[in-house]
């Protein structure tokens, strides 16, 4: 099977981010509501959310032919924790024990609500040593192509597909055109304006997945102009999100999941944050009034520098649209497209005023919001800069009961509505298409489950209907 994929931002070295769902197998998976389900870990147990016992299947082989022992997993997890200290959870990992060949016991410094969410993302190929044990193994990699071969010793049985070829195209239009020419069997992220025509084609299946990413305009709250909460509120009020969705996502905008506007960094389906606060209304007059109050004495337009990941057409389009919308409230956006590596470096160092990018929230709760918006004493340029938000994030992070988690999530939404660290724009559409001769059994799942389906039961080659 050939997958046509628009070139993604190279956040990870090479194209590992694309192949990871197929090559690696996390401990658990989260469904669209953030609820955990077994994956590599057959079961887990905790009494205090501090000590977690994972039960693993026996005789798991990694792609190098070795047995995936608990000792190897322990070493990998420790390495993962060492490399990912931006996540609080790994900083608080105290010990890992392997009392039996199929049991791992993780001990954290404090109880946490994000352990399973964190375990849904490891082991991963970028860790050393690599513990890839997924249904496919990466056999070839070039700038425009990835070749994955079926891993016959996959612990849940050999995949039905002999292999997967990932073709990377310069744009969504190019990937779509290749798909129409049958150069690709499967299309990821078709251009928004072709969705209807694809859906009308009886020879093509269109698959919708629940969004697990969204676009946001991140504010550097330490910037003098953005330190004033009224400016950040004004920016949120000046953005016409519905027009943005309609203009940029055209046919996607007809799907309800893409029109759900959000005011906090949670996936739309996250159970604990449902109906916490109303979305930002589009009110340019109020925005202008707030800006006038905040910038009393300044008559020139507010000029803000916005970095954006380059070579992604949709981000350029969003940037241009924001540029036009903010101009109506006398905010001049100076867009700067950056290579992804430079963009990431600037964001993680806090060296930006505004940063426009997609953001992966997954289906979980506090893991990513805490990593991004919890203010850190050791890095004053990162975080929300708002103590109430920090407190709410702490409460969410260390929640020991579901009710505590729900109350904390609601509080995070409210504080971020009150003192916004970013403008959360819209969910990132997650749509794929396949030619009719490829059958996929779909369900609303994350990309990890997407790979599950491909590997275990989906995408069975069949005759065209």
């Amino acid at each position, binding site marked *: 099977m050939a997958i046509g994929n628009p070139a993604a931002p190279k956040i990870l070295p090479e194209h590992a981010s694309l192949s990871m769902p197929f090559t690696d197998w996390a401990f658990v998976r989260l469904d669209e509501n953030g609820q955990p389900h077994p994956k590599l870990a057959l079961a887990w147990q905790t009494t205090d959310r501090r000590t977690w016992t994972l039960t693993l299947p026996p005789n798991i082989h990694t792609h190098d032919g070795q047995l995936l022992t608990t000792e190897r997993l322990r070493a990998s997890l420790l390495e993962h924790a060492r490399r990912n200290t931006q996540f609080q959870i790994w900083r608080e990992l105290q010990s890992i024990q392997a009392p039996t060949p199929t049991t791992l016991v993780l001990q954290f410094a404090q109880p946490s609500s994000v352990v399973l969410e964190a375990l849904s993302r490891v082991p991963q190929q970028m860790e050393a040593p690599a513990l890839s044990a997924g249904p496919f193994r990466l056999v070839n990699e070039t700038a425009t192509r990835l070749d994955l071969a079926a891993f016959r010793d996959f612990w849940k049985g050999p995949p039905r597909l002999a292999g997967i070829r990932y073709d990377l*195209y*310069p*744009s969504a*239009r*190019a990937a*779509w*055109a*290749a798909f*129409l*020419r*049958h150069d690709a069997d499967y299309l990821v992220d078709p251009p928004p*304006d*072709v969705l*209807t*025509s*694809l859906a*009308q*084609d*009886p*020879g*093509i299946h269109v698959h919708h997945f629940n969004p697990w990413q969204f676009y946001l305009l991140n504010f550097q709250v330490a910037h003098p102009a953005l330190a004033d909460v009224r400016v950040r509120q004004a920016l949120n009020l000046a953005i016409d999100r519905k027009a943005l969705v309609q*203009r940029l996502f055209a046919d996607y905008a007809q799907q309800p999941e893409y029109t759900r506007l959000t005011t906090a960094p949670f996936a739309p389906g996250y159970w604990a944050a449902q109906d916490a606060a109303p979305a930002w209304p589009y009110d340019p007059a109020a925005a202008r009034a707030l800006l006038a109050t905040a910038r009393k004495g300044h008559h020139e337009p507010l000029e803000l520098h916005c970095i*954006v990941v*380059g*070579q992604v057409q949709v981000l*350029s*389009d969003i*940037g*241009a*649209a924001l*540029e*036009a919308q903010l*101009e109506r409230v006398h905010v001049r*956006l100076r*867009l700067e*497209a950056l290579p992804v590596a430079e963009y990431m470096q600037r964001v993680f160092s806090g060296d930006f005023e505004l940063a426009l990018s997609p953001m992966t929230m997954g289906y979980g709760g506090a893991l990513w919001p805490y990593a991004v918006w919890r203010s850190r004493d050791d890095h004053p340029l990162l975080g929300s800069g708002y103590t109430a938000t920090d407190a709410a994030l702490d409460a969410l992070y260390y929640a020991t009961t579901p009710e505590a988690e729900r109350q904390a999530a609601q509080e995070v939404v409210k504080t971020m509505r009150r003192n916004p660290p970013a403008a959360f724009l819209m969910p990132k559409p997650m749509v794929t298409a396949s030619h009719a001769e490829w059958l996929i059994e779909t369900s609303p799942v994350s990309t990890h489950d997407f790979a599950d389906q491909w590997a275990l039961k989906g995408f069975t080659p069949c005759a065209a209907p």
Partner: protein
Amino acid sequence: MRRALIRTLARTWRARRSLTVQFAGAIVGLAFLPMAVFGWVALQSIAHASRETAAQAYVTIATATATSLATYVEEAARNLVVLADGLSAESPIDHALDARLRHFIIDYPPFRRITLLGPEHRVLATSELVGPPATLTPRPAAWRLGNVTLTSVASDDALLPTVELIVPITSDTPATVIADLNLEHLWRTVHTLDLPSEAQAILVDESGRALAHSNPAHEAEVARGLDLHAHPLLRPGAGRATTYTTDDGTEWLAIAAPLPRLHWTLLIEQPTRAIDRPAVIARQQLTFVLIVTLAVTALVLVLVGRTLTAPLQTLTQATHALAQGERAIAVPVPAHRELANLARAFNNLVDRLVTLEATVRRQEREAVIGQVSAGLLHDLAHPIRNIVNNARLLMKLPAAACRDCLQIIEREYATIDELFDNLKEFARAATPLRSQPVLPHHVLHDLARRLQHDAEARGVTLRAAVDGAPLAPIMSDPAALRRILRNITVNAIEASQATQGTVTLTAEDTGESRELVTFTVSDTGPGLSADQLDKLFDAFRSTKRKGLGLGLATAKRLVEQIGGTLTVSSTVGEGTRCVIAVPRFKAAGS
């Protein structure tokens, strides 16, 4: 072959035609043919009208769509001209124009990318955020739309068709605006056309390259650069409508609508089979209705016809039975008045016939009794008178003289005894016969010997001409054969007595395979008239003074019983000749 078949069918039809079939056929023909003719004419009209209607509809759709598409391009061009005019008013051109170009695209989505070129194709501003090239060379101009130049359609980096719109601007710094027009919008418009089944719309550029296709299944071909320059409506001098056939044998009705002021063409076409489908469906429906109507009508007519002809068939069968002698016949009287009258007349006829036959049988019986009585009265009167007279005489005569009288009485008694023998012989003629070998010559010799004395007493010469080789035996009843020849020979001798003539008996083989033996009895008596000849074999009819007239009648009946024939020829004054032809072997079952 076909003619032979038709002839056979016609013969069968003629042979088997009946009143019912003719009646049903006539009614069905009268009802069915006008309906079929009307239906056929109506279908032709529907088929013709379908194509005309489809063509007119497609002309309307194509013209409206072409105008819409042209308006789309023209509006894009006008907007670009407005942008260019705005840019020309600004001087100097600087980098801040990037945002303006981006905002223009936000407001006018048809443009994917707009670039402002300065002298030597140097890029002054661009809507692109990333990687604007230092220079950009426009594609060759293809045609103009007012102040806007359009390039030929080309494939972009995604291998999709794009066209560039170029507008020169005049300012202190000569510049040109180049905009990539989003052609996907065109095929989205073409996609959304409400076309009937199997119809398709294709937008082609001036070179015949397909830009858009209404059928999503053909998008791949469009993406590959589907070339339609050989389409019949895209050839120089081609009309606006035509029908043509593709290599796969599909006939298409095609309509072309040029985009006003542009050099592109919108084609709308549909397989004629799809256009004709309503007529085909109507034809199928009409055929179905006709067949059902025909079948129902025929069935009803056959049932009605059978109701009408059933009494006739009954009457026919009764007539056959009547002819075969059946008399206990009475046909049922049907409800229909005419047929009831016919049935009653037949039943009356049968009743009358039975009555008449009974009367005839009674009269015949009475006639026979009368004949027998008269014959017996005639033949017995004289002997009995003689016996009575001689008996009276005996009483008066002396005993010696009684001898003659007694002889007369004895002779008369013999006469009466012979009469009774003849009656018994006539009655016995109906008894079954035997079959055994019989020698013909031996029969004749024996007969001649037995009758020689009687013939001589009558002065008649009796000859049995049996010279030559004896004939082979035949299979017959010897007693019957002897009785036949005896009766005929005795009759001949008696007939020849007056002329003292000769009676000759012969026997010979005859027939093509000598399968017959023919006995001939000829005399030289006075002969018979034609009237006498006709009644020769009638029983109880005789020209002689003595006898009941049963001899020849008995002979005739016996000849028929042994399977032979008896023919008589006679000439008055010359004599009579009887020929008895007997089969050598009687046919089985006779």
